[in-house]
């Protein structure tokens, strides 16, 4: 019985400021130690100033994960020494005097599997260590505090995962959920980090730390399961310990530093009183929560008749679902959904492409209209879309500029059909005996018209001609 549990740290990158000071929450564009102030650098005499919105955002994360949310929360100090920790203690949350963390027990479904959430806590990120110097002899350790104090939400799960695939699925669900709630940009480097714990066959639990990416997490868990199974097969006991993921060698190794039993001496953070959130605010937050992904999917399927697969893709990506909701009407919903999930996807598959895209919801409406009224073929529409994303020009201008208009004139089309028939006598003969092969001829007509021929009309004309 393999048991895997996770501890995921998610940065609240959608906040403007850090958890305890007014420096920027998203530190990524700053030169080292320029996004700092006396508070986040732990200078003497400074006191933490708690960010109100951080509590609100953490609360809705807890609600989205079906966690209990206590009316009053408290903060604690976790005391230990490390160069990236400006105060040499971290302000975090615990439940030693009753339930005082932002989120209590909850759960989320991963496919058919129920994953229980142990708790959610709000805490501060430490700074970053940078190593300079080629050899380990000359190496020096440098500290950049830009990240110190960035708000983190830690999600702790019960060891309910049975295999690495479930873990991966969960991380994707969590990622989409955080993005959908507008609390974090999970795609940003370092915005989501995770540690795992693994045990097999009811044996000792091994913690794995220092995992850089989700991809590595899957690998690390897989490796650790294999390692434990191999030990078990040889009847070697599995020691309860913390292991580090070695990214270069792709293995987990025992922590060399036998950290003299870390005693964190937890106690209440005296500079932050207990915070009363209260039922009223919690209810308001719940009612203002963005629609959940599963609810969106339901709505797309039941209200607009959008196929299940398409609805899944649309709903799980906030960029697409926002676009859909802004541009669809009762009439063109299915068409818009189709355009987004087939033609558009390839054009905006990265964060960069999305920021550069000039596509507006009005463009999609015009495009859907044009397709439905047969002014544009699918192929032309695809070409038009490419141009829209690039330049943002009106659809009508693009159709004119690139001459994308449908060739729907029967006479014109007939001429081209005759041309193709005369050029392809063999294909004609084949089509007469095997009607299925007529598509080859349709394709030729499309080629000649650069995709602008009305496909249905072309097919009809060819059929007439052949018989």
């Amino acid at each position, binding site marked *: 019985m393999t048991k895997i549990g996770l501890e995921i740290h998610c940065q609240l990158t959608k906040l403007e*400021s850090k958890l305890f000071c007014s420096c920027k*929450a998203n530190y990524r564009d700053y030169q080292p130690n320029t996004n700092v102030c*006396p508070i986040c650098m732990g200078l003497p005499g400074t006191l933490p100033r*708690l960010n*109100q*919105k951080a509590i609100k955002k953490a609360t809705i994360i807890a609600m989205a994960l079906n966690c209990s949310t206590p009316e009053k929360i408290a903060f604690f100090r976790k005391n230990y020494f490390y160069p990236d920790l400006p105060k040499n203690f971290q302000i975090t949350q615990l439940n030693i005097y009753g339930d005082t963390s932002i989120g209590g027990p909850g759960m989320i479904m991963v496919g058919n599997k129920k994953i229980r959430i142990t708790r959610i806590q709000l805490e501060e990120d430490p700074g970053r260590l940078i190593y300079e110097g080629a050899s380990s002899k000359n190496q020096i*350790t*440098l500290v950049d505090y830009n990240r110190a104090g960035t708000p983190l939400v830690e999600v702790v799960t019960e060891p309910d995962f049975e295999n690495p695939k479930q873990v991966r699925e969960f991380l994707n669900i969590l990622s989409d959920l955080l993005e959908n709630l507008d609390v974090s940009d999970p795609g940003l480097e370092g915005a989501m980090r995770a540690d795992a714990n693994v045990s097999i066959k009811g044996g000792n639990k091994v913690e794995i730390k220092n995992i850089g990416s989700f991809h590595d997490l899957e690998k690390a868990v897989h490796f650790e399961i294999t390692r434990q199974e191999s030990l078990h097969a040889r009847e070697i006991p599995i020691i309860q310990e913390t292991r580090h993921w070695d990214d270069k060698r792709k293995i987990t190794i025992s922590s060399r530093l036998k950290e003299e039993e870390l005693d964190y001496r937890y106690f209440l953070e005296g500079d932050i009183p207990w915070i009363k959130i209260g039922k009223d605010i919690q209810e308001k937050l719940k009612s203002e929560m963005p629609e959940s992904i599963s609810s969106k999917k339901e709505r797309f399927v039941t209200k607009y008749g959008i196929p299940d697969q398409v609805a899944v893709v649309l709903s799980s990506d906030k960029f697409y679902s926002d676009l859909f909701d802004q541009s669809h009407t009762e009439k063109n919903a299915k068409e818009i959904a189709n355009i987004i999930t087939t033609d558009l996807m390839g054009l905006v598959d990265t964060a960069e492409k999305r920021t550069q895209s000039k596509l507006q919801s009005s463009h999609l409406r015009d495009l859907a209209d044009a397709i439905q009224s047969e002014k544009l073929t699918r192929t032309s529409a695809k070409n038009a879309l490419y141009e829209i994303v690039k330049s943002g020009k009106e659809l009508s201008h693009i159709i004119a500029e690139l001459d994308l208009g449908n060739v729907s004139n029967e006479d014109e089309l007939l001429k081209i059909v005759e041309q193709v028939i005369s050029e392809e006598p063999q294909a004609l003969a084949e089509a007469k005996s095997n009607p299925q092969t007529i598509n080859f001829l349709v394709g030729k007509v499309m080629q000649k018209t650069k995709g602008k021929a009305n496909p249905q009309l072309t097919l009809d004309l060819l059929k007439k001609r052949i018989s």
Partner: protein
Amino acid sequence: MVTEEEIERVAKLMKIDVHDHKEFVEKVHAMIDFFDMLDSAGVEDEEITMKDLPLSSLREDKHIPFEDKLIENLKNYKGSYVRAPKMV
């Protein structure tokens, strides 16, 4: 009883080199013995609470950069970093 090993362990925890352990053992021992009187206070059933603050009195989420070049006025390496000792 506070032993020298305990003092050594705590000194490591608090990251202070305590050379003359014996001196500390005596003084710290005396201080901790003094604290033993807490056992007779009869407070086992007391609850630990703190005053609370409503959410609305907390700081607004605004980015306000600190106006001075802080790192230049602290110990720094090449004007941009803080230098830490080697990590093993």
